[in-house]
């Protein structure tokens, strides 16, 4: 299914095109090499593992397990959103380890190996009044997540 077939939610713009598909539930856009079989993210034209140019776009649901996590407590360069925010690596079911934001900003409420799910979260509002969004990972437990990716107020981290 080509990207043009999927309409993003109105009033939202991805932080960069080609990282994820902003539908509910969202999809992560990875690259899969036809020569060596490795997956990578973000999708590139050339496989970073074997330099082959036989790379296909592969959209995956973004389910996996938490591999490492922390939280960022002070705004890093170029970032204008809220702090603190969660930050970690999720090992997807496909074996790919993806670095990204986590919806949980309190590290003690997360544990290594717990199931995580891809979500899309707001970063800030751009000059045209649109909400700039990016991919993130949320704990997969219990209640479903809203389109804004915020976790429910309680119970999500257990």
């Amino acid at each position, binding site marked *: 299914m080509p990207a043009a077939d999927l309409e993003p939610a109105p009033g939202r713009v991805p*932080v*960069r095109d080609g*990282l994820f598909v902003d539908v509910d539930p969202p999809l992560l856009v*990875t690259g899969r090499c036809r020569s060596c079989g*490795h*997956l*990578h*993210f*973000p999708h590139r034209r050339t496989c*970073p*593992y074997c330099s082959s140019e036989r790379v296909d776009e592969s959209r995956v649901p973004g389910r996996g397990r938490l591999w*490492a*996590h*922390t*939280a*960022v*407590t*002070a*705004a*890093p*360069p*170029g*970032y*204008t*959103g809220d702090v603190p*925010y969660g*930050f*970690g*690596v999720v*090992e997807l079911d496909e*074996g*790919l*380890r*993806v*670095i*990204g*934001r986590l919806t949980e900003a309190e*590290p003690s409420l997360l544990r*290594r190996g717990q199931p995580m799910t891809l979500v899309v979260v707001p*970063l*800030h509002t751009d000059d045209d009044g649109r909400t*700039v969004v*990016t991919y993130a990972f949320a704990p997969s437990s219990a209640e479903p997540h809203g389109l804004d990716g915020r976790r429910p107020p309680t119970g999500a981290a257990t």
Partner: protein
Amino acid sequence: MRAVDVAGVGMHPFGRHGELSTTEMGVTAVRAALTEAGVGRGGFQAAFCATAYGGVASGHKVLGALGMTGMPIVDVEAGCASGGAALMLAAGAIAAAQYDTVLVFGVEKMPKGIIRSSFFEPWQEEAGLAATPAYFALRAQRLMESSGVTKDHLAAVVVKNRRHGVHNDDAMFRSEVVAGDVLASRVVCEPLRLWMLCTPNEGAAAVVLRANGTGSSGAVRLAAAVLRSHVPGAVLSESTPLSGLVDDDVIPPTALAAQDAYEQAGVGPGDLDVVECQDTDAARELLSYEELALCAPGSSAELLESGATQLGGRLPVNPSGGLLSKGEPLGASALGQVVELVRQLRGQCGARQVPGARTALSHTVGRGANAGVVILTR
């Protein structure tokens, strides 16, 4: 191939120096190294200047201020390993008999706070993914899970290096700290506290290299100067790509550089008397123990606990105080390590001297990824 000697070294202290420019700091370090080497105008045939944030023609500005231009002057950027990269180029040129004497120096004036790096794409900054300490923190957590390293060990690295730094006039922080205060300092990215992270700062260092046999006997020998980059797949290597496939078997750039350097120098980790390693954060030092093969995989905590890596131990690591005491001016930090180790091998380090040191290793690793390993012998 010709052997390469260190003919002279010089430093401008690392710290915060107000309006002082990179050029002025560079002049101080270069002048000191040239004086020590007995080399004047026209006495070196090439110069390599390591810098990451210095901008266009940093090396030319320093040598222009000294009235010593005309030879090739090349600025070298390899992140935290920039100085190691410059040394590798200079040593290679001397070994190949392209030049007899080469000046290598590093200058830097870092912005305050979390390092802004053009390594990251604008969207990564916008999404909050250019959070360098967070990558360090993830790596620290993985080390803690895989090797029994605890927060107390991280604090102990800081206590050790700050104790060493008390004796170093070129260090930014020259006071001892206690573990409780390290652990009580502000959480930057769990598990890393503020005092467990080195401070980006300002400074310069310089080294004059010369073909063996053209200077005085008894000089410190540059036995190896190696630079390596990462191989694909290491999700938490210093290259910090956004993703990698399951990468547990990927050899990190530091281990690649160390293997090459040990082979070039004809020494093994057991031959080392003193090490300066990349303690960007406290966990990075412990990881370096493993990657440099100073200990078996997973046993960095035991090596630290044994006291071997403190002054007075079997293999002191970061007797200069490390980056945790000196701060990290990227382009100058690797050469700062080399200056320290040359002085250690000459027995010039006073209260922080490692007695009888004859074989030394310098290690830097950072953005790129780039890892530099230098081995010095006497």
